[in-house]
């Protein structure tokens, strides 16, 4: 490990400028902080955390819609555990759960099938949250629900696609990123091809990385070598899990059920083609087809800078609320509430860089 850090320093010395590398994935943010990789970087290599946690980027208005639906005791809301504590505009799913005792937390989307069967007199509403890693499993579950002709299932479709968000980041003129450390497990599904346009059209190096300390260090070394050689392209470091074409079967199931739509990312705003919408044949499961949803305006705490943190423009230590008001026990913004949020990572492992 020492050798690779030395090699990074050596190559960084050969660079004639400062370079900024954004890690897209929240799991990478946690690993970088846990292993202290940011402290090993030479002065001219800066690691920036990006928007990579599906929980963090779910808009407040979607959480408010889920809470709105929980007010009816004939509805059961089903969520992944990470979503429970995320603050909406006034309250959270956790604070509302005891009112009608109608919340179920699942580990796997497949558990929903059993919940629909055991509660046939209730509407089961699944809060679809996740990137391409999670969406195929959700899509497979929705397909089986259709095959089983289950009638009491609905979903709030708030899934997100990563490459369109990366394009939005490179189009932001205030951000000057040289390279992306691309998400390993999203890429297990989508492969490396969907990032190639970012290298070709926007001149950014993209390297798909694994999650161990050595994987990340090796990926950083590949990135700075490519930058030094002005060889801008997309590469896979995480070759033991990622293939160029990804998992074709999982991709096929995902795209059979979900189409893309313009979608709001919390704190970031609307990104074209970055969200999930149910395709024809599965639309009957969309909550909008079954429930009257009151339109909710997107509102967040004005002092919270999660939006800028998700875009890598500011760091948690730049936020007035960080550790003073906003803590993991009492989170204000989404980056603190999710275990993989940038603020939660800084809070747990410390650091000012």
């Amino acid at each position, binding site marked *: 490990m020492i050798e690779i850090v030395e090699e990074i320093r050596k190559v960084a010395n050969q660079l004639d400028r400062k370079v900024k590398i954004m890690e897209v*994935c*929240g*799991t990478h943010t946690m690993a970088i902080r846990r292993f202290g990789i940011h402290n090993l970087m030479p002065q001219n290599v800066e690691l920036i955390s990006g928007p*990579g*946690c*599906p*929980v963090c980027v779910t808009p407040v208005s979607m959480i408010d819609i889920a809470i709105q639906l929980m007010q009816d005791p004939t509805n059961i809301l089903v969520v*992944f555990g*990470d979503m429970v504590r995320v603050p909406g505009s006034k309250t959270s799913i956790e604070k509302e759960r005891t009112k009608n005792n109608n919340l179920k937390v699942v*580990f*796997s*989307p*497949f*558990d929903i099938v059993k919940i629909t069967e055991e509660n046939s007199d209730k509407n089961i509403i699944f809060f679809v*949250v*996740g*990137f391409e*890693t*999670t969406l*195929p*499993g959700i899509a*497979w579950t929705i397909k089986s629900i259709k095959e089983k002709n289950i009638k009491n299932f609905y979903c709030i479709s708030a899934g997100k696609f990563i490459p369109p968000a990366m394009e939005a980041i490179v189009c932001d003129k205030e951000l000057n990123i040289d390279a992306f450390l691309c*998400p*390993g*497990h*999203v890429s*297990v*599904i989508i492969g490396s091809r969907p990032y190639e346009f970012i290298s070709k059209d926007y001149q950014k190096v993209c390297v798909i990385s694994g999650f*161990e*300390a*050595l994987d990340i260090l090796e990926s950083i070394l590949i990135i700075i070598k490519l930058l030094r050689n002005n060889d801008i392209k997309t590469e896979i470091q995480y070759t*033991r*899990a990622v293939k160029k074409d990804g*998992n*074709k*079967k*999982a991709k096929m*199931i995902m795209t059979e059920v979900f189409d893309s739509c313009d979608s709001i990312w919390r704190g970031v705003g609307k990104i074209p083609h970055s969200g999930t919408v149910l395709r024809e044949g599965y639309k009957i499961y969309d909550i909008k087809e079954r429930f009257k949803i009151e339109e909710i305006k997107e509102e967040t705490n004005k002092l919270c800078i999660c939006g800028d943190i998700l875009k890598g423009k500011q760091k948690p230590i730049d936020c007035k609320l960080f550790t003073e008001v906003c803590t993991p026990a009492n989170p204000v913004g989404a980056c603190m509430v*999710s275990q*993989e949020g940038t603020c939660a990572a800084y809070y747990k492992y410390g650091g000012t860089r």
Partner: protein
Amino acid sequence: MCLSVIGKVEEIKNNIATVEVFGARTQCLLDLLAESVTIGDYVLLHAGFAINKLDKDEAIKTINDIKKIMSIEDDRNS
């Protein structure tokens, strides 16, 4: 949220695999995989689904590396 772990397949019934993950046992569906999986194979698990079949030697090497890191962290915390 995109956390995945490596598991060793111990049993397969109706395309549901029982896998061993660092001594613990869990189940996962194999329906997202195009390739066939047999007992003794290693898969990458995410939210109750196997999302990839891994090369055996690479998987064993990764598990050993993780165990090494975990033991260093245990020593540091004790």
